[in-house]
Each structure stands twice: as structure tokens, then as C-alpha cells.
């Protein structure tokens, strides 16, 4: 775990330092109204201020020291500590992703199981095609279509096109506020979930197919167990193991996707923060977001490993970490 985290920080830091130009001259802009000597002085002072005149490994260590205490410096654009911005925005993104996550699992597992049990019959083929089509739909298309047709004058106006809460929402008591929030989240969640369905359903189906063909299922049938028991207790319990480990990879994929979703629906989450930071070259924020995203990835992977060790008695915890 630790070496991986170090590796991530090195890569993020390396990118920021390898790039052409350095933060100071970029923030100062080309040309400028100062004469050459003055400009050089300002640059030197700024570089000293940001510690950019020290050798790179030293810079890295300094930065790392700050990162460990979650001090990412200040946002150039917002003029506030980056960590505050993240604290505001991270929960929103996490909420969005967790809701999507749960929905994906709740829908995919039964669908995958049914597809495996009705292997090669109508439901299997039909759902396979539908899921592939869902997987191939770009979120940008779906998002904009949804906004265009469900949020505005063009067709129906059932949902709000942007934002997380309506104006004056904070004046509402709790339940109406919650309802309002959820109403705003419906379309973004739809966009975030539909592509996850295909991936997970395919995995569940593949796992179930393999389990159903296994010898121990034949043994279970030979014992006289009913089909339902065989499927849900024996086959399912085995096929769930690879599905759990997928949890680990699903979360980072969704985090990346939420950048686009948040942009389309103007939701002030981490993704939006990253987007704004990149367009405005707010380097502190960019590095912070990349590091935090990496950290969340790692946590996801770790949780996946733990879940795997719990689910599969063949695996001991030490061997998987």
C-alpha cells in the first residue's frame, strides 16, 4: 500500500515538474508590463516563495511533507486553502458515486444471474445486446439529450437542468430539502449508472455460468437439492467472488466519469473542481485532486482485497495484501 501511494505521489509530482514552464512564469504570464530587470526580480522572489529554486528531490520531499498533513497549499483561483475546497466538494462526488454504485449492483446482480440461468435463450441474448448498447453510449450524449428533452422548453420540464439544489433551498426544512436534492440528482445518477450495468452484468453472468458448470453443482443436484437452492446457495456464492473484486475497479472508473457528468449538470463536486482547475491552470488544486483521487483508488482496491479475503475461504488475508 505505502509504496503504491508513494509511487502515485511521485508520478503526480513528476508531471507537474516535468511540464514545460514552471508555475511561477505561467502565473506571471507572457510579457507583462514590467521591464526585464524588475520581471526577473519578481520571478526570483516568487520562486523562493514557492520553494521552486531548490533541487527537485528536495521540492518533492517538501511537498510530500505537506501532503501527508493534507496541506495542499492555496488555490490560485479561489484564494482559499485547497483542502477546504476539497472538503466541500468531495462529499458531493462521493454521494453521487455511492448512490450510482448501489443502483448498479442492485440491478446488475439479478440481471446477470438470470442471464446465466437462461443461457443462450431469449433473455440472455436480448439483455446482452441492450447492455452493449448502453455501454457504448457516451455519457455526454445521454446527458445532453436528457437535459435537452427533460429539463427545458423543448419537450418536458420534469427535472432541473443544473445544480445540486434549487435557489433558496437552504431555507427549506430538512425533508423538503432532501427531496429537492434527490430530485436534482436523478438525471446525473442515471447518466452515471447506465454504463456500469453492462460491465457488471457481464461479469456476474460469466461468473455464474462458470459456477453452474462446475462439478460441485452437480454434486449438489445429486444430493437432491432444489434448483433454487443450487443456484442461490451454491453457484451464486462462488460466482460472487470475482464480482466483489470488481468493486475495486468500478469506483475509480466512476470517479473519472463523474468529471463529465458534473460538468454537464453543473454539479459542484470534485470532478467539477478538477475541470475548473485544469482550465484555469490552478496547479495546486490539480495536484491535490490527482493525489486524492489516487488515494481513493487505493482505498477502493484495499476494500476490494479485504472483501475478497472474506468471501473466499481459500484466500488468507496475508497472501492478498
Amino acid at each position: 500500500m505505502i509504496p503504491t501511494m508513494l509511487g502515485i505521489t511521485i508520478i503526480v509530482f513528476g508531471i507537474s515538474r516535468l511540464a514545460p514552464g514552471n508555475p511561477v512564469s505561467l502565473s506571471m504570464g507572457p510579457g507583462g508590463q514590467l521591464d526585464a530587470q524588475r520581471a526577473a526580480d519578481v520571478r526570483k522572489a516568487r520562486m523562493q516563495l514557492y520553494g521552486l529554486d531548490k533541487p527537485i528531490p528536495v521540492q518533492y520531499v517538501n511537498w510530500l511533507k505537506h501532503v501527508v498533513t493534507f496541506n495542499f497549499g492555496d488555490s490560485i483561483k479561489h484564494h482559499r486553502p485547497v483542502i477546504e475546497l476539497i472538503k466541500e466538494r468531495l462529499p458531493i462526488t462521493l454521494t453521487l458515486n455511492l448512490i450510482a454504485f448501489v443502483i448498479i449492483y442492485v440491478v446488475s446482480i439479478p440481471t446477470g444471474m438470470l442471464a446465466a440461468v437462461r443461457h443462450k435463450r431469449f433473455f440472455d441474448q436480448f439483455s446482452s445486446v441492450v447492455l452493449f448498447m448502453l455501454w457504448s453510449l457516451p455519457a455526454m450524449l445521454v446527458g445532453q439529450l436528457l437535459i435537452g428533452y427533460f429539463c427545458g422548453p423543448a419537450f418536458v420540464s420534469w427535472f432541473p437542468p443544473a445544480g445540486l439544489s434549487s435557489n433558496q433551498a437552504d431555507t427549506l426544512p430538512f425533508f423538503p430539502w432532501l427531496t429537492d436534492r434527490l430530485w436534482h440528482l436523478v438525471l446525473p445518477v442515471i447518466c452515471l449508472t447506465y454504463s456500469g450495468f453492462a460491465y457488471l452484468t457481464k461479469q456476474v453472468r460469466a461468473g455464474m455460468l462458470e459456477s453452474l458448470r462446475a462439478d460441485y453443482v452437480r454434486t449438489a443436484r445429486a444430493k437432491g437439492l432444489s434448483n433454487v437452492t443450487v443456484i442461490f446457495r451454491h453457484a451464486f456464492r462462488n460466482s460472487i467472488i470475482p464480482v466483489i473484486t470488481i468493486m475495486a475497479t468500478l469506483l475509480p472508473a466512476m470517479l473519472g466519469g463523474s468529471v463529465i457528468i458534473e460538468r454537464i449538470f453543473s454539479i459542484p463536486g470534485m470532478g467539477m473542481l478538477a475541470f475548473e482547475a485544469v482550465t484555469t491552470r490552478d496547479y495546486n488544486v490539480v495536484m491535490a485532486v490527482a493525489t486524492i483521487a489516487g488515494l481513493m483508488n487505493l482505498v477502493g482496491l484495499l476494500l476490494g482485497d479485504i472483501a475478497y479475503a472474506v468471501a473466499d475461504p481459500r484466500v488468507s488475508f496475508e497472501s492478498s495484501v
Partner: protein
Amino acid sequence: MVEISAQQKSWGVSYGEMVRREFVKNKLNVVNLVLIVILFALAVLAPFLANDKPFMIRLDGKLMFPLFASLTASDYSILLAAAIGIWQLILIRRNRRNIEPSVRGQVLTRQLLINASILLVGSILFFVFMPRRLDATDYKGLISSGRASDAIFAPIPYGYARTDLKVREQPPSKEHWLGTDDVGSDVLCRLIYGSRISLSVGFVAVGISSLIGVFIGSILGYFGGKVDFIGMRLVEIMMAIPVFFLIITIVAYWQRSLFNIMVIIGLTTWTANARFVRAEFFKLRNQDFVQAAVSLGLPLRSVLFRHMLPNGIAPVLVEATFGIAGAIFIEAALSFLGFGVAPPTPSWGQMLSLGVSTTGRFLWWLTLFPGLAIFLTVLAYNLVGEGLRDAIDPRLRKAA
């Protein structure tokens, strides 16, 4: 059906042949493959399909061919690539008929190398020797003013960079079949040219990712032990990095350019390939033919790449098709966010971002058509990848 010569029958059926036959059993796969070929054709023939310069025009009494004259070096390179690609496919067909299976691999490699070199040299020559001709003549104006006549235009008589602010943000009509965008360029034309960007990103990115992945995976898989342990830590680090965030981080620091994007996507998505190859090599490592090769004293690169790799390449091919779909997705997403290629280069993602105009109007044709283009392309590649996977799998199972 193609008749198989008696000689071919006696050679038996090669692995690739088995996969191919299984693949075409499902009609859906064939349809998708045809779709992909059509896409390729669109990309290659783009300048002939959509161009604001006519094929032929009589200007001041003289017969001129502006379209052909204005073809750029990249157009020529792409045409050369297509020609060589078709030639290579013909050669493969001929190989299957005339050449014995055991030497077929060598012959194929030699052909690929020769053709690739021709392509490379040709492209370089084109770029070096072809002058950049910028032809901004308004041929349509010339026609209406009477100076020119007898013009034959391409089916879509617009250029992808041609702007015409008088007709901006127009819905589909007779003149502009799919409407116009925010600066008046024809949507259909930009859609066709955009396929070039998407396809090239897909192939270059996947090419890079496959090369890196195969290389690392084969070394890790073959050596195992300490090498594998350290190597897998590195792979895990790469896997743990949120790819999309990394890409936009890189984009933040470097300039926007098509080349950068292709390389970055390739550099960040190789881990899946590495894992597959590593798993295959673990299985192959203990097989007799590998031990035989090693005991004969063959150099390492020969053992790895000539003997083991052809046996373990199947999952990489499947992953490659999915990778192309994924790369197209990523490029579209980046362009949508504004981090991808810069205008006037046409990109489907960038066109999508124009769906909601600055005045708040919903320009449905700018959302639907580029979106559909992405959707159909990605769908075709995904289905082909799935079909390929299904074709390979039962073969493996039956052979096992």
C-alpha cells in the same frame, strides 16, 4: 464459399483460421465488421466525400482539378496506408493458399515489415516534398459570378474548416443535411473528417498500449520470482492511478495536441494488456516447447517473442478492440471538456460540447449526430471484440 485446394486441406486448419471461421458463424459479427470497414472507408476517402473544392471545374475556359491539387500530404499518406492495408490482406489470402503453415508466420512477418517500411518511407517523402497548398478560392462564388462553369463537386460540397457565419447554428436542411455548428461549418462534413481523428487516436493509443503491455507482461510472466514481484508493484501503481484524472492532469500542464493525447492514452492504459500477457506466459512457461527452445540456446528475445508470444496473443487482440473503443471514448470526453484537439480540427467530442449554444438554445443536431457517431463506432468495436472473444474461447476449450 471459397473452395479449399487439396493442398490446403492436407495442411489442416491453423489457429487463426479456426478463430476466423467461428467468428463469421455469427452474422452480427460480420455486420459489425462491415460497419467498421465502412468507417475506415469514410475516414480514408473523406476529402473526396466532403470538400469545398470541386473535382473538376472550367475556369476561364481552362479545365482545372482543384480537389486533387489541394490534397495534403496527410491525405496522401492515408491513401497510401489504405492501399497497403488492402494489399496486405490480399497477400494474407494468398499465403493461406500457397504457403505451408510452418513458414507462414515468418513470411507474414517479412511482408508486414516490408509494407510498414514502404508506408513509413512514403509518408515521410510526402511530408517532406509536398508543399503546403492553401487554396482559399471561393469556387462557388466563381460559379455564381459566371467565371466558372461545368463544375463537379463532391457529394458534400463543404470544407471542414470553412466557416460561414451567416448560416451558423442551423438545423438540418436541404443545403446542410445535418445542420451547421456555431461557426457555420457543415456538420456532416466535420463528422466525416472527425472519424479520422477518432480512428487514429484509437489505433495509435492502442498500439502504444499493446506494445508496452506485451513487452512488460512477457518479461514479468517469463521470469517470475523477484522480477515479477517488483514489476507487479509497478503495475499496481499504474493501475491505482485514476486514469482520467491523470490524463487531465497531464493536459493541464502540456499543450493540447492530438499527438499528446494519443501518447498519453497509450501510456496510461497498458496495464490490462500486461496482466493478460503475464498470465498467459505463466501458463506457457512450463510447457515443453518453451523448455526446448531455451535448451537449444535460443536468445531470450527469440524465445519470448517468436515462440511464446504467438501462443499468448489472443487476449491481447480482444483487449485491443475494446481498447480502441475505450480510446475513442476518452478522446471524445477530453474534447468535450475542451482538453482535446483544438478547432478547427474536427472532433466528435468537441462537436458534442456545442450542443447547448451560448444563448441557451438546445441544438439537438449538434448533440445527436456526433453522439450517434461515437455510439455506433464504439458499439461496433465492442461487439467485434466480444465476438472475437467468443470465437477464441470455444476453440480453446475444444482444443484443450
